[in-house]
């Protein structure tokens, strides 16, 4: 209910901002730059469906290169160290610390795409009232979808710096799908990068895996994509071997700039029954289809119609 009231308020306020500012979307560009160029340290809560974790973040820019350290404070330890385009995840599993090289992703608070032009065609921007988040005055900005293929995104941007301090994603029924919010944050001026190193626990075994999944595999598209949801573009294509069989499974990743969907294409083993239909698993919708010996599954925190459209869009 509260989101509905807020939405009505924002729709009116969006009219006023159109008159007062030539390009209201410039606020998103400023937020994007803030996530790249500001030096700060803070703690935010990250909630995905019913699971909440506290995460510490330290961000600095040095010689035009970004340095980010993320540290999960609750439960099993986990860290991310990112320098420029290189990102390593330190994931503690039992008595082992698995160090994995990964592809870079848009992680809170750096959730906006570099180019916001694509968002303009599929979201309506409106500006809400000011609120206090983590002791700082913030400006509420809402991106409301123009169709049913994506969710509502609420952002609270720091009034001074435009850094996103809070983000809430809600579905059409106003259920919270995902949210992240700073509980404390400080802008830093110290250019010292001594903090940019992993926490080492000598009692653990460290397993280093420097290979990005599927990096060395020759990829072969033997399908065509037809009628994918508007605004979504392919942002990644990963192929990997199915253990025990010399055949490949594929993962295509699509995004509209804010939402992500994975489309998996996997051969069905003899005797295995293919699955069809859809289920809701936490914040994710999963849609399954069978075609030509392949199990197709779309996975994502997106509306069911988006999930179904993706699973139906692949043709052999």
């Amino acid at each position, binding site marked *: 209910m509260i989101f509905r009231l807020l939405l009505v308020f924002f729709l009116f306020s969006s009219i006023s901002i159109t008159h007062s500012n030539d390009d209201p979307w410039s606020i998103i560009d400023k937020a994007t730059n803030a996530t790249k160029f500001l030096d700060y340290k803070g703690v935010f809560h990250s909630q995905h469906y019913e699971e909440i974790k506290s995460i510490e973040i330290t961000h600095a820019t040095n010689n035009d290169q970004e340095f980010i350290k993320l540290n999960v404070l609750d439960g099993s330890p986990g860290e*991310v160290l990112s320098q420029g385009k290189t990102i390593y995840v330190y994931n503690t599993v039992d008595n082992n610390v698995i160090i994995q090289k990964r592809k870079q992703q848009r992680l809170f608070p750096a959730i906006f795409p570099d180019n916001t032009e694509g968002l303009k065609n599929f979201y309506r921007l409106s500006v809400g009232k000011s609120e206090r988040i983590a002791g700082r005055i913030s400006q509420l900005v809402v991106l409301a979808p123009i169709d049913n293929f994506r969710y509502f995104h609420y952002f609270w941007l720091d009034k001074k710096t435009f850094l996103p301090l809070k983000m809430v994603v809600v579905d059409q029924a106003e259920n919270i799908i995902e949210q992240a919010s700073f509980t404390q944050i400080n802008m830093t001026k110290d250019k010292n990068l001594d903090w940019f190193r992993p926490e080492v626990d000598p009692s653990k075994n460290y397993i280093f895996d420097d290979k990005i999944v599927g990096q060395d595999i020759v990829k072969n598209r033997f399908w065509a994509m037809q009628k994918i949801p508007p605004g979504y573009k392919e942002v990644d294509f990963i192929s990997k071997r199915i253990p025990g069989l010399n055949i490949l499974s594929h993962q295509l990743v699509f995004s509209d700039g804010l939402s*992500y969907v994975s489309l998996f294409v996997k051969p069905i083993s003899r005797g295995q029954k293919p*699955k069809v*239909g859809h289920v809701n698993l936490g914040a994710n919708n999963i849609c399954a289809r069978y075609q030509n010996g392949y199990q197709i599954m779309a*996975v994502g925190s997106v509306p069911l119609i988006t999930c179904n459209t993706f699973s139906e869009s692949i043709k052999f």
Partner: protein
Amino acid sequence: MNEKLSSLFDNELESHEIDDLLIRSSKQKKKNHWTYYQLIRDVIQNNHLGSDGLTKNIIDAIEKEPTQLGGFGRHENTTVENKSKHWPIAASFAALFVIGLTALNLSDFRPIDSSVLAEADIPTDLINDHYSSASSNVNFFIQATYNKNSI
């Protein structure tokens, strides 16, 4: 002359005959015969191995190009170099053989019975793969579990 060449490969010539034969054969451009006799000798004596590392090259090529049941496309970035005109053909036969074996373990391409997707049918790997490459949520990005077999 050809008879002499044959005797040479069978170790049936005396030293002075070998010198004479080599001089005469080089003058008469007997390179083709020379090659054929070498090949025939190797086959008869069961020493013919083909080009160096042929078998290994074929196995490596198959290893680097996993079976793709959906069709064959052009691979522009393949790192395997052709070292002989024979082994692409051999590799093709070998690949077809592997496809045949693999197909025995896979379902038919005909429509088959399917069942309705349930929560228990969703492999953890599937969700983890999605989170590790398509999540904006830090917690899930980090948590995606390590799967040794998937690397």
